[in-house]
């Protein structure tokens, strides 16, 4: 058991190394240099040289103990991403500050979506083959086909501005639940189609198992089969899905945050793109990947504890 965990831990090392290589190639080699931008208007070549030295862009890429690559590894692994060059703020501080607003948007959105889509999926699975089932599958596909941006623009215009049901935007001293309500609602509606369809398939897959046939054969009612047996067994794929989705919650939502003024990580990312602030995107990519690897590890270890069939080899 412990050897399994250790092996599993060792297995993450090449993955993290791989992520670091990818980020290095993307952000240090392909992306190019932004020292002109930092220098501002009317800067001399000397200032630019000074800037390149300050950020270490004048060092060799590889092949030296003080190369950019080694420094990239060192900095990333110690979470020292330095300062954003667009506003000289510590990148890690920015990320820490952005995490909470992002989570307060994505966590309720995620939970709401989960609860609603699983409940609906159960109902639809229960009514499979009927007109309601066909209709709901159709509605799912319809919802999946509308671009997300359209949901946001129409939602903000009608629900918030025209009809005044929600605040239009973030506002100082406005309680958090109020200004995140509309983006959460939009997020749930936009994601409902895909989720409901996914969970319906999970439920129906489960329904085809032998134990369901046995249960029906025993003479159990449909409701009891669905809730007692099917839901319980379908929980495993659902929980896997849930755990693996958690790291992504930290990233927030690019568009929702921007349009509703939620100062989270999604917003930070859009800003970084516009300003070509690669180091922020680099940091976010790395942290996102680390979270993913960690949660993956947790899932695997949980499995190995819960399910004795998982082999330790």
């Amino acid at each position, binding site marked *: 058991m412990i050897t399994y965990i250790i092996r599993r831990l060792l297995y993450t090392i090449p993955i993290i190394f791989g992520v670091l290589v990818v980020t290095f190639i993307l952000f240090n080699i392909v992306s190019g240099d932004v020292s002109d931008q930092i220098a501002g208007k009317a800067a001399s070549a000397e200032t630019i040289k000074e800037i390149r030295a300050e950020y270490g862009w004048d060092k060799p890429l590889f092949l030296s103990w003080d190369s950019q690559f080694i420094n990239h590894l060192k900095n990333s692994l110690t979470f020292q991403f330095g300062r954003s060059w667009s506003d000289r703020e510590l990148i890690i501080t920015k990320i820490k500050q952005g995490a909470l607003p992002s989570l307060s948007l994505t966590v309720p959105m995620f939970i709401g979506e989960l609860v609603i889509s699983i409940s609906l999926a159960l109902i639809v699975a229960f009514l499979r083959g009927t007109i309601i089932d066909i209709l709901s599958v159709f509605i799912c596909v319809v919802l999946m086909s509308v671009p997300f941006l359209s949901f946001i*623009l129409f939602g903000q215009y009608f629900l918030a501005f025209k009809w005044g049901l929600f605040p239009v935007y973030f506002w100082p001293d406005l309680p958090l639940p109020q200004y995140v309500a509309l983006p959460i609602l939009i997020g749930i509606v936009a994601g409902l189609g895909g989720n409901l369809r996914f969970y319906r398939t999970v439920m129906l897959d489960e329904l085809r198992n032998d134990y369901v046939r046995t249960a029906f054969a025993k003479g159990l009612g449909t409701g009891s089969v669905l809730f007692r047996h099917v839901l319980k067994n379908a929980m495993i794929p659902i929980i896997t899905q849930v755990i693996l989705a958690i790291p992504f919650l930290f990233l927030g939502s690019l568009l929702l945050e921007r349009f509703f003024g939620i100062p989270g990580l999604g917003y930070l990312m859009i800003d970084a793109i516009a300003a070509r602030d690669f180091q922020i995107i680099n940091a976010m990519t790395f942290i996102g990947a680390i979270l993913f690897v960690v949660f993956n590890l947790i899932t695997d270890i949980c499995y190995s504890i819960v399910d004795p069939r998982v082999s330790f080899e």
Partner: protein
Amino acid sequence: MNKTKEKNVPMIKGRSYWADSLRQLRKHKLAMYSLSIIVVYILVVMFIYLASWTKTDVSFLDWNQTVGKGYEKPNKQNVLGTDFLGRSVLRKTIYGARVSLTVAFWASIISMLIGVPLGAAAGYFRGFIDDIVVWIYTTLSSIPYILLILAFALVLRDKTLNLNWLGLDAISLSGISTVYLAIGLTSWVDICRLIRAETMKHKQREYILAALSYGCSNSRIIFRHLLPNVFHLIIISFSLRFVGFIQAEVILSFLGLGEKNSPSWGSMIDAARLDLPKGYWWEMTAATAAIFLISLALNIFGDALRDSLDPKLKVQ
């Protein structure tokens, strides 16, 4: 397939897998409607390309022509209204199909060209090759997808790809090619994983063992035996992910990373950020409707295709 043969030969049972699936698919009315919508979109795009290659002037393709005043509401002359320069929104919408479908098409091709050979090789040879491939795709898949695609689009923008070593001219990336490269280079992981798993399964099957015992070469086994047997998976995945690619183009356009010199649905929706507060809703609505229609058709058709090609997955 051939009907006359079917008549002559009394055994109807012997229909091939593909013929059977197609027959099933044809019975699915909704799927057939969807298919015709898709075909119409594809024909439009092919027509646009054809017209531009042959330099034919076709009035409904001339999206850059002024047909009315700026910001005309939908009316008899301009069915979907006009944009800020008085250009027809209808023509822009039609023309926009080009960018979206081209992006989705090339992104699919690129992701397949990377994912399928890697997956097949990893699943077939196992060992070191497998380790490397699995390492690469685990690495990529542990980076959140949206970040990965943004990062690629960001760094690939306005770059010139030096292809001299391949004996080709340098390609300078802009707009459309950046978008499909970014999507393609980041979305091959799923298909690769799928093909790898399927290849591993098939490798144990008798027909492969038989081919091996005949002394077939590895490449022959992979290309002549293995891939045809997993090909339906590629088609299913292709049809289901096409929608995702179209939507990704919208997001990238919104972030200013998309095509800039000709209309695309993404940039039309993007324009709504300026237009909607002024009450000009038609351009965005037209683009949304265009995306909606093709996505709907692709979703329905993709589902039907999956049901008929992969009976195991069929959902009652």
